[in-house]
């Protein structure tokens, strides 16, 4: 159900667009109104989420250090996995976002009869990298529809993407990459028992949605051709706020509608990892908290057991040991307030209990260290 459900949901969404633009010819709705709304929802939603995270405090400097820290000058620091400067953090984040550094560490653990075996496992890293990079390049390629004249960098990107010159129209590597990547990510969720166990409907839904978008796009490009001049006219119209929806092929609207669904869904889902990764305190902070004080905006005073209290409670013992003393001994009088007396009693009793427990434990396991 957690797999079929999302699949059906995506099929239904595709059908809505098909029916809406095939039999019903609601081109303005599906080509102009919904895309505008979806885009606005995406921008607003994305900003809300980012602001929302930004509003939460970062009380402590807690990078996960994954290499040698900056220490003595003759010890070589791992500046990318354990950065101590802004430049280092920039490098770490760049590696993380562009090359999935942490995922590259991935290993797999297998249980054997009398032990465990840890082996290298780079497939997730590779599959994720192929999908995300394909997706990025495809999105960038789509800018050709919104810009006139088409900038040289887009043409260059298309040239590289289609460098093998196979097929007509030329097959883009990223079209293969995104389908292969998504299929891999889907299959591992189904095939690897552990991953299937942790997967939820909301993990399958975006995969199907993205696959639907990719498939509709591929069908348009390679099989049922659409009127590209009408598509470009619509896209340019959308960005110049004078849109005309002259495209009539329903498959185009299926593609666009699924993209709209993705845009609306994106900010409120796990897909926000795209924005969230930049906010991760274990990655985006320099490991320099011994050299530079980090300030907690909500740091507050706490109740402490002061040296004065400590000395007073241990005064006689400390005096007998010849330890230096700072204060006059205040003999414990009959407690003026009932509450304080009760507290002291509780403390005494607890101490005695703990000491006994500690002694017993030491005798048996020597693990009483705290």
């Amino acid at each position, binding site marked *: 159900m957690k797999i079929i459900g999302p699949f059906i949901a995506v099929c239904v969404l595709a059908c809505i667009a098909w029916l809406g633009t095939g039999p019903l010819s609601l081109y303005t709705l599906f080509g102009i109104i919904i895309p505008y709304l979806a885009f606005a929802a995406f921008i607003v939603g994305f900003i809300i989420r980012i602001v929302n995270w930004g509003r939460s405090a970062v009380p402590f400097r807690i990078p996960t250090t994954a290499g040698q820290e900056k220490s003595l000058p003759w010890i070589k620091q791992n500046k990318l996995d354990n950065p101590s400067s802004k430049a280092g953090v920039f490098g770490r984040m760049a590696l993380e976002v562009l090359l999935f550094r942490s995922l590259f560490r991935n290993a797999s653990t297998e249980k054997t009869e009398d032990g465990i075996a840890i082996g290298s496992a780079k497939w997730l890293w590779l599959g994720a990298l192929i999908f995300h990079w394909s997706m990025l390049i495809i999105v960038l390629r789509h800018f050709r529809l919104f810009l006139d004249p088409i900038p040289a960098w887009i043409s260059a990107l298309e040239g590289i993407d289609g460098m093998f010159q196979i097929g007509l129209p030329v097959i883009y590597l990223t079209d293969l990459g995104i389908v292969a990547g998504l299929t891999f990510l889907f299959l591992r969720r189904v095939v690897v*028992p552990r991953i299937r166990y942790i997967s939820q409907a909301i993990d399958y839904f975006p995969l199907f949605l993205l696959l639907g978008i990719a498939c509709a796009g591929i069908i348009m490009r390679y099989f049922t051709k659409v009127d590209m001049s009408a598509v470009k006219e619509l896209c340019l119209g959308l960005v110049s706020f004078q849109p005309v929806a002259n495209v009539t092929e329903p498959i185009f609207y299926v593609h666009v509608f699924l993209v709209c669904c993705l845009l609306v869904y994106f900010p409120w889902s796990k897909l926000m990892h795209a924005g969230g990764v930049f906010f991760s305190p274990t990655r985006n902070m320099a490991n320099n908290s011994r050299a530079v004080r980090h300030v907690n905006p909500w740091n507050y005073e706490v109740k402490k057991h002061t*040296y004065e209290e400590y000395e007073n409670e241990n005064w006689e*013992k400390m005096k007998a040991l010849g330890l230096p003393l700072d204060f006059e001994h205040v003999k414990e009088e009959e407690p003026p307030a009932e509450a304080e007396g009760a507290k002291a009693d509780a403390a005494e009793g607890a101490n005695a209990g703990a000491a006994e427990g500690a002694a017993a434990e030491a005798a048996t396991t020597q693990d009483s260290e705290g």
Partner: protein
Amino acid sequence: MAKLPNRTEMLDFDFSLPPQGWMDTTTEFKEGMFCHAVKPEKLEAVNMPNAHKWSASDEDWGLPEDWKAIILQGMADRLEKYRSFKLFMDVCVRCGACADKCHFYMGTGDPKNMPVLRAELLRSVYKRYFTRAGRMFGSLVGARDLTEDVIKEWWYYFYQCTECRRCSAFCPYGIDQAEITIMGRELLNLLGLNTDWIAGPVENCYMRGNHVGLTPPAILDNVEFMMDDLETVTGHYFEPSFNRKGAEILLVCPSGDLFAEPGTYTFMGYIMLLEHLGLDYTLSTYASEGGNFGFFTSNEMAKRLNSKIYAEAERLGVKWILGGECGHMWRLMQQYMDTWNGPADFLEQPVSPITGTVFENAASTKMVHMVEFTADLIYNNKIKLDPSRNDDLVVTFHDSCNTARGMGILEEPRYVLKHVCNHFYEMPDETIREKTLCCGSGSGLNAGENMELRMRGGFPRAEAVRSVVDRFGVNMVANICAIDRATMPALMDYWNPGVGVTGLHELVGNALVLDENDHRTINLRQEELPSARTDKEIADAVAAVAGPDDGEEGAA
């Protein structure tokens, strides 16, 4: 106490998964896998809320009437106060990269010990009460209601996490289960649901200055006893000072080093070194704990316990602080202390009085790690070492989780180790440095009643040790963590009998040549040294280690 299963029984599990989803599996409280419930007086002594008598095996945990409101309000507060918490609740994509990285998952096969699912225990509640999708679609988006069973499940599994951060190193977004466990435990503590093993040391540390509850006479007695032993070994009697005003350096150690073997040998190593150098240092009976079980309770409690270190440094008028070998203690010194209780502007930037090295990495905290200090001494040829005194040891090095992934002190201990012993072998790459595997007993899980959990959680580490036992004949695990020293002997006895556990400075103490008449026949454990040596041999050994040093090992 539950009977500890034998090795075959312990390994009789696999990574297969139950047919029903994790939300539909009820938590079975298995003897030996959890700690005793906290006794109310221990919470009351430190003003923790909702102290009450309860037991994990009870049906009714005696939660306060408004427990649900307390938890939800507690979550709301923490989502505002910790970006890590909010972000980590939101961005997980369940890619599963963390799933098989947790030592508790590797040692139990329990799917809820996959970090992703342990986080989902809390995330599901977050979704239900703090996200629109969760309120509208419920379990369809992985949300579920907060019930008393959920609280019990949290308690069982958030105390099956050692906050080691290994999952965080592998997560593409850096999601850190330690942060989630910390939040989970804070929430449980709002309901008075700590473990006795954590609350006891917290109360001791608050009232008496250290986890084990040592009073001033007990501390001085223990130290005197150790100094007597040192005299037997070295012929020198050392008298470390306590609470002495005007000393240059305050030495703060984990109290385990004052309390039980083999930590005491490590302490003897510190003292030998510092006394040999003639340093102007003192110890404190008040700040007699560097470790902090408050960190396994709540942020506030951790800050309360930590406060005495700077307070005592200020009172005694020292210039800077030197810290002993301890894992979570150093995570806190590195990432929390200055923020909690700083700025320490009454202290000075630490400078080694022996080498003149300015510890720039400690410019603000003013606290130096003992291993950094010793590595600097060795690099500058300021001490004479005879590593052959450790020749009967074939040593491997276990990076403690906190110093590896919450600090990054990886090369210094190895550099020291290579100068104090002749036989050092690394465990497999996947199990050391930033990928180090936990001892299985950190974050306050080093009790006796949960021994099965500890042996399971430590199993992956023990496996890695076994691999170097088989290949190189390793017989000693060196470390820089008091919890390791306290708990790994039991772990080794169970999985790799015959393998010992030592702090790094015990080996330093053994190798340290105090003067030309330092002819020892026994090591700090008063075991016979591998061979009786002549002066000539000692002189040769000293010449060999004191040669020009280009720091090659450090950079390796």
